[in-house]
């Protein structure tokens, strides 16, 4: 179905692109939100990515590659959106109100707090690799391909990102009293 929609959209069919956007939009939003940690910015990035995809769709040779291609555009839009947003909002705290139930049994409030802080210290490029690998479930070669980076770079970014997040959890585990104090 998706391939047919891409083919139709490539020929300028706006209805088909609208339908296509609704097929892929939620997935894009989920990825963008996890990279940016901000719903407004993620929304803006997804909209920009979809509009860019429409404009450039004729240059997409292989309709089956639509989603990886869109994700690459989306990642760039996330980077751009983050740069645009710096002066507009500062260190916006994300209140976990969606999907919390699924992970509530695993993550403590401390875990989430530490991971959130550590995640925000990662570069956007590291976040993207982390999200595509751990959230989207792509193998690293696929992540590298989707982001258009060498495999070695993807490995390096994932290593540093994961190490930083692990370190935050381990540091928190070593200082329970401090964590409790911070929550008070």
């Amino acid at each position: 179905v998706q391939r047919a929609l891409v083919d139709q959209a490539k020929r300028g069919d706006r209805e088909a692109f609208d339908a296509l956007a609704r097929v892929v939009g939620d997935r894009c939003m989920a990825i963008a939100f996890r990279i940016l940690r901000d719903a407004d910015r993620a929304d803006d990035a997804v909209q920009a990515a979809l509009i860019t995809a429409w404009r450039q769709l004729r240059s997409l040779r292989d309709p089956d590659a639509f989603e990886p291609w869109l994700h690459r555009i989306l990642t760039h839009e996330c980077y751009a959106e983050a740069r645009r947003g710096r002066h507009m909002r500062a260190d916006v705290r994300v209140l976990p109100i969606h999907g919390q139930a699924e992970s509530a049994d695993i993550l403590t409030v401390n875990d989430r707090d530490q991971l959130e802080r550590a995640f925000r210290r990662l570069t956007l490029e590291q976040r993207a690799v982390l999200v595509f690998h751990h959230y989207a479930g792509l193998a690293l070669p696929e992540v590298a391909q989707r982001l258009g980076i060498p495999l070695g770079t993807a490995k390096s970014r994932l290593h540093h990102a994961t190490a930083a997040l692990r370190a935050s959890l381990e540091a928190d585990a070593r200082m329970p009293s401090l964590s409790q104090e911070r929550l008070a």
Partner: protein
Amino acid sequence: MKSQRDPDVLIRAFLEDGITELPDRSYDVVRSTIDHTRQRFDFGPWREQQVANFAKFALAAAAVVLVAVIGSRFLPGNQGIGGQPTPTSTPVPGNQGISGQPTPTSTPAPTTAPSTAPTAAPSPTDIVDPSGRLQPGITYVALPFDSISGMDAEFRFEVPSANWDAHRDPGTTMHGMEYAGSQDVDGVGVGFLKVDSLNSDACHWTTDEDIEIGPTANDLMEALRSSDQFETQEVIMPDTVPFETRSIRVIMPNSLDVTACDDGEYHIWNGEGFDIYAQGPSNLWQVSIFEQWGERYIVMGSSMPDTPDEVLVELREILRSVRIDAAPTEAPSPPAAAPLPDEGTLVEGAYIFEVEGSSVSLSAMVPGGWRAEFGTVIGPNGWQEPGGVTVGFVVVDGLLKDPCHWSRLTNGEGDQLGDVPVGPAAIDLVNALVASSAFTTTEGPNPATLGSYPGYAMEIQLPDGLDLMECDLGDFGLHHHYLGFSGPRAAALKYAEDREALQQDLVIADVSGTRVVAYIHRFPDTPDADLDAARAILESVEVWR
């Protein structure tokens, strides 16, 4: 077996949290936009650039090298483009005829006396890092490597008609242009790039072994000549070119079928800047490689066998106009007022601001290195908050009685609706602000001018004790907003959480029947130098209409 306390398990659980749905209204926005947006052929999609490990050069002084000669030398005249080039491994002269002795052709005369221009400073008509449709009569400055490796070389060029669109990948600087005129022409463009490796298998470019290339122009020439992924024709450059330059035509296979290729694309090389792939069978690339300041740069033009002659003429004119400059180490001289770009780093000079929601247009002098965002707001390059500063111009319709609990006033989209009536004059808004508990007036109002138009200056800040975390949540309920003003750009005056310390300098003036609010957003720890620069910008305002 991993336990639930395993860090990887926790990280995955953390990433599972959060939004997974795009709101319906976002689809509506996209649909509404594409209803008014035509598709275009593009040189994209582009891979994120693989950054070359070139040693970055130190720029002792700004320098300019005229490469105009390249345009006419590496594009064929009446031969080559427009017909099927004849691949050969034998070097051929740049025009046609005698090796090493270019002969006159019917093409426009090349600039055969290349010179070194004295400075890289923008002229009054320069526009840096353009976007959208390019216009003739303007010198554009492309910074194709800016977003990846910091300031590098600058490429200056002009276009002969309004048939060309600047090209940039999302989130990057402009690094090329493509034909977007009325003719149904695909695959024609000009790009600026660096190349650091070739793909051993251009069709399976995501998994093949990259062929690393040495740093010189000759290294790249040799690598191109040796590749079996395309045909080449070397072009002999005249002795008069003042620097090391090689030129070569790269011709894609005439039987090229990309359907089985990775991403449906045929990529012959990897680099930085304009990352083009084959535009189709027999796609011809005119590649000029030159070395300056310890770097290797490429200016290239792409055309197809069926590209109309008149389009080729335009392509050739653009290539002839290209100059490469080292990024200036000194502040450039101010240009005449140029339209404020949607985004990007600005050179020092005057820029035109269109005040959204009005017909007012004004100009202001902006320091070099400041950035434009949204086409309406400027601030120092690399701004961060707290400590940041931004300058903008808006139309304000009204105020809100309770900016912290504003959601009942909104219509969910578009403008925010104020519930404090404010008359149309500058003094009306000044009085309303002074009377409002939404802000604390810390200085003024005092008589002032914006341009030559009369108004008032005042300083306000968010009220003491405000906890933005208590304010209404914005879309998706993820962060809190304090809406101080209503109007066409209310979003620019929307204060998200953690910004309690925000201060604003306002100049409110009546400009030809429109109340314009010039503002400086700042924080207690905003550096004095940035604040002084922001105030100087407001003092430099001239109203155009």
